[in-house]
């Protein structure tokens, strides 16, 4: 019987359900990056290639958002906060989605880099969630007439921030106990469970009467006029690239620390 060999995987011999699970569980990506040395070979140049274009896009987008686009008919100049508030919200929620995916990869496939990625995402994710909350508050004061209200969107976003703090505390504790990559199974499960909050944040303004406005950009189109919308694309992409670069830098730092620590332990044992 002819056997289709695919990246070290014999698909032809497997029962059907494993045919399905095989390519998913053993995706090329996972094997290729399972080896930290091979990951670093790609991560080193990628850090630079994400950081500088990200920063450039971000500065152009923010500059256009500050000085080029017109003021909003109702909010006036404060509409410009949108160009940083929306990417911050996107990264705060995207960051936790990344933590959840990394947790799944750690728990199911025992991928050696998953724990490293999860721990690397936590701090910038928490930071951008905080930026989202703060810029929202600064926008709310002149627009709504209040710095903070306990409506569905704001409360669920604050919960996300506390989830990040909890994850960071758990990850630091497990790193001190010498867990691989610094994320224990408990921490990973916490990251997975916390992901429940992400759809709640997203839907909060639809399910519940909230002070925060409904979604402006939906699959059907945008209720933000084109003349105000375009810098948002630049800042969204810019912040995302920068976030990627920050995560890569933190992953590289953790991998290097692990290497030093492993060597120290070997030396201590003689």
């Amino acid at each position, binding site marked *: 019987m002819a056997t289709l060999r695919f990246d070290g995987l014999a698909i032809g011999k497997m029962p059907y359900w494993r045919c399905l699970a095989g390519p998913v569980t053993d995706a090329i990506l996972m094997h290729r990056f399972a080896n930290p040395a091979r990951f670093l070979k790609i991560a080193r140049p990628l850090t630079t290639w994400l950081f500088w274009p990200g920063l450039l896009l971000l500065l152009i987008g923010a500059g256009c958002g500050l000085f080029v686009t017109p003021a909003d008919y109702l909010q006036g100049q404060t509409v410009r906060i949108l160009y940083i508030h929306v990417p911050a919200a996107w990264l705060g929620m995207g960051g936790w989605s990344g933590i959840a995916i990394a947790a799944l990869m750690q728990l199911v496939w025992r991928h050696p880099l998953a724990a490293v990625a999860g721990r690397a995402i936590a*701090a910038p994710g928490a930071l951008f969630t905080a930026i989202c909350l703060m810029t929202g508050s600064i926008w709310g004061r002149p627009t709504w007439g209040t710095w903070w209200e306990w409506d569905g969107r704001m409360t669920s976003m604050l919960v996300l921030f506390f989830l990040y703090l909890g994850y960071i505390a758990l990850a630091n504790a497990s790193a001190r106990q010498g867990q691989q990559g610094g994320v224990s199974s408990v921490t990973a499960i916490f990251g997975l469970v916390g992901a429940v909050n992400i759809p709640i944040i997203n839907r909060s303004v639809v399910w519940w009467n909230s002070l925060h406005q409904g979604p402006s950009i939906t699959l059907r189109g945008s209720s933000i006029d084109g003349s105000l919308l375009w810098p948002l694309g630049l800042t969204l992409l810019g912040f995302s690239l920068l976030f990627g670069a920050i995560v890569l830098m*933190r992953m590289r730092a953790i991998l290097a620390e692990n290497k030093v620590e492993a060597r120290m332990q070997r030396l201590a044992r003689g």
Partner: protein
Amino acid sequence: MNQWAFVIAAYAVTLAGTAIVSLTSWRAMRSAERRADQLSDRG
């Protein structure tokens, strides 16, 4: 003009936060990788 105060505050918070996390991440990476490289030099 008062509105600009809010805009500037929001951008300043974002700029400071992004700069701090980028800089600390980069410095942590550089020092950790330097220590790791020194190890491999000594064999």
